[in-house]
Every structure is written in structure tokens, then in C-alpha cells.
């Protein structure tokens, strides 16, 4: 999943380690999120969004997520 974590982190002059410590995960998790290799859980997404004082959908890009509409995907 695409995210704006790297962009926001650079804007706030934060290292991956600092962000990881602030939201309670390892640095590798932040790296994986930024590289789009791992999708954050709802709780982690909430923590990251709250850390940057933003809404979840402003940090994480849900446009490519397949959703059911009228019974079809």
C-alpha cells in the first residue's frame, strides 16, 4: 500500500528510528511500510496518522484497495 510516511517523516525531520520509537514498532517495520512491502494494521495506521495529526486516509493511500460495491469486487 502506498503511504506518505517517508514524505511526512522528512517534512518533520524525523528518522525512521525516531518514528518507530514514537509509534511502538521496530525501525524495520517503518522501512517496510515506506517500501510498500508491508501493510500496517488499523491500530498502527491510527498511531502513525495521529502522530502526524492527520487522518488515516491522508497518510495511507486506499485508492488501490479492492472494495466490494454492490456485491462485486
Amino acid at each position, binding site marked *: 500500500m502506498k503511504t506518505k510516511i517517508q514524505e511526512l517523516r522528512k517534512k518533520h525531520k524525523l528518522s525512521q528510528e525516531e518514528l518507530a520509537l514514537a509509534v511502538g514498532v*521496530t525501525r524495520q*517495520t517503518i522501512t*517496510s511500510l515506506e517500501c510498500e512491502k*508491508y501493510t500496517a*494494521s488499523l491500530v498502527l495506521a491510527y498511531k502513525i496518522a495521529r502522530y502526524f495529526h492527520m487522518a488515516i486516509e491522508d497518510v495511507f493511500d486506499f485508492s488501490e484497495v479492492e472494495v466490494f460495491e454492490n456485491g462485486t469486487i
Partner: protein
Amino acid sequence: MEQYKDKLKKRLFFLTSCLILYIVANCVMYVYVGTKGNVNITNFIQGFQFGIGFVVMALFVYHITNYVSALRNEKKLKNIYIEETDERKLMIYQKSGSAGMTFAIGGLAGASVLAGYYDTTIFFTLLGACFFVATIRAVLKLYYQNKY
């Protein structure tokens, strides 16, 4: 974090008890086998037992010292907490554990079929191990289905 501290203290107690029990059990077995036992134990098995015993004890001591120092140092405590609760790490453990069990069952089943052509004892041993792993998997699956 206080809850996690309590959890670590309980773990510390459990690990220390296990370590003491393990040392006592090993000493008793060593004395029993060495003096009264009529078990024909080879040097290889003794070496293996010693090696495994040493590794287990080293792991216990490592975790005990790690937990003791974490309980005295807030920064280390937080690091251990993060390492243990990191969702990506947990997902990796779960996925590798699940896939590992599937491969183990498949490997044991395949090996038991092959062993059946050569030796009955090996066949039944592998079959038993296969059923044991499969049973554990089934029980865990049922447990987690009820839990979540």
C-alpha cells in the same frame, strides 16, 4: 508499561524455576545413569545431551540476564517491549510457523512412505511423529478458532 513489567517478573520467576529444575533433573539423570542405570548409552548420545543441555542453559541465562537488566533500565524495557510486540515481526513468526508446520507434516508423511519400503521401526516412528505434529496443528487451530 507497568503491566509489561509484571509480565516480565512472572517470566523471570518461571525461567529461573525452569533453569533450577532443569539442572537438578540433569544431575539426577546423570547420576542415575552413571551409577545405577543399565542403559547402554553411547558417547555420542552423552555428547549430544551435554551440547543440548548447555545450549538450553545458555538460553535461559541469556533471557534471565536480559529481563533483569530490562527491569532496571526503562529504555531497555521499552526496546524489549517493542521487539516483542512489533506487528510485522509477529506476522513473520506466525507465517513462518504455519508454513513450517505444513512442511514438517508433508516431509514426515513423505519420509514415512519411503521408510515403509526399508524399515518398519523407522516407518512407525516417522508416522507417529507425523501424527503428533498434525494433532498439535489441529488442536491449535481449534483453540484459535474458538479464541478469535
